């Protein structure tokens, strides 16, 4: 019997230990697994490496983990935001290591991990300082840089609906990094709005097949709002 559902967020994040590499979904506040991040905070683990597009904002989720000095290293494309003060403070203090990667390369590197590839060549960033120390190669007259897979020990992802097998659908632009991160971690943990019965999700509309999912917890609607225009 395949049943990926767990009772609560604490059970969902159990087993995450000091030094773990966490792939954390979300783009800004959209798709951020806020409930799972809170549970990781409660777990008390430290020396985490977090892979997330941003560097947290305000006082919640990734920002809270950074504020409480649980994060040793942040791998992201864009750490700055109007209210990313905890990222800025810890980075300025020198207690938070930062690795900045072009956003598409970050996503593609996680996909490479999920797809079992040994790495790929991309022109993105090849002729910039972000390629410093990396192998470059001229391919069809264009400079490319070699990028390695970026796997995680755990992925923390927010989706919309899940069934017992861990099949997932997402909601609008909250899909973002979720489907890729689900493929790239040893253990994939997903928070969803609600559970549905097996068979309620149309096989043509499932975005993440359950094979990529290890644990799912139902947490209700997202709590975070975008900036007003």
């Amino acid at each position, binding site marked *: 019997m395949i049943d990926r559902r767990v009772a609560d967020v604490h059970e969902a994040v159990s087993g995450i230990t000091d030094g773990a590499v966490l792939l954390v979904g979300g*783009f*800004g*506040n*959209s*798709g951020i697994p806020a409930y799972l991040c809170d549970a990781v905070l409660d777990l008390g683990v430290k020396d985490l490496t977090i892979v997330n597009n941003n*560097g947290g904002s305000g006082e919640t989720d990734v920002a809270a983990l950074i504020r409480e000095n649980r994060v040793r290293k942040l791998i992201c*494309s*864009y*750490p*700055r*935001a109007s209210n990313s003060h905890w*990222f*800025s403070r810890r*980075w*300025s203090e020198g207690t938070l290591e*930062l690795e*900045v*990667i*072009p*956003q*598409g*390369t970050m*996503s*593609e590197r*996680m*996909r490479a991990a999920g797809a079992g590839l040994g790495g790929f060549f*991309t*022109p*993105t*960033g090849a*002729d*910039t*300082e*972000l390629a410093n120390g990396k192998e470059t190669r001229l391919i069809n007259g264009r400079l490319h840089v070699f990028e390695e897979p970026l796997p995680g020990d755990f992925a923390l992802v927010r989706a919309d609906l899940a069934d017992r097998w861990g099949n997932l659908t*997402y*909601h*609008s*632009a*909250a*899909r*973002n*990094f*979720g*489907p*890729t991160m689900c493929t790239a971690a040893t253990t994939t943990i997903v928070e969803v709005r609600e559970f549905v019965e097996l068979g309620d999700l149309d096989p043509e509309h499932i*975005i993440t097949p359950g094979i990529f999912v290890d644990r799912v917890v139902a947490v209700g609607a*997202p709590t*975070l*709002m*975008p*900036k*007003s*225009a």
Partner: protein
Amino acid sequence: MTQTHFVHGWSIDQVAARIAQDIPDGSFVNLGIGQPTKVGDALPADREILLHSENGILGMGPTPTPDQFDPELINAGKMAVTLLTGGSYFHHTDSFMIMRGGHLDISVLGAYEVSVNGDLANWSTGDPTHPPAVGGAMDLAVGAKAVFAMLTHTTKDGRSKIVRECSYPLTASHVVDRIYTNLAVIAVQSDGLHVVERAPGVSAEFLTAATEAPLVQC
């Protein structure tokens, strides 16, 4: 909102409108954060132009009314948006396939500097006290069929941003096709920068004097 002071020529809205004029009907376009987002408001109503957002949206629509509001539907600048009829959602890696794989017709990007050979600097001032932040800038610069750079022609202290060689860290080399500033529209060609149009009241002499890189005037 950032206030940018234009000494001469077009306003930012006018530059946005001038760019919009150069986007053909049926184009797939990504508008970078900052000034380029203004191009969205200036698109001609009689052209069907689809906007892509790197966080997984094709056919992005305007700011929502209260009853359209979806807290998870945001654009690359993290602002609430809508989806047009016919639009679609996809995941981030697929979204960057669109950007990196040459599928976008036009990418409009802000810029600190553009060089005579189309090098673009728009992601870092090189200030070591500021954390680096690249986002999708390099992906957009490298992957679109055409790259439009939108910027003020000079810095506040009058230094040209259209340069022989970029002084800021590069976003990508040899990528910019057209430069749109408050003073002029400039095409980047293999034999140099060609002025396509000058803003009203901007003379060829003034433009040449305001530009570090050599220009071929129209």
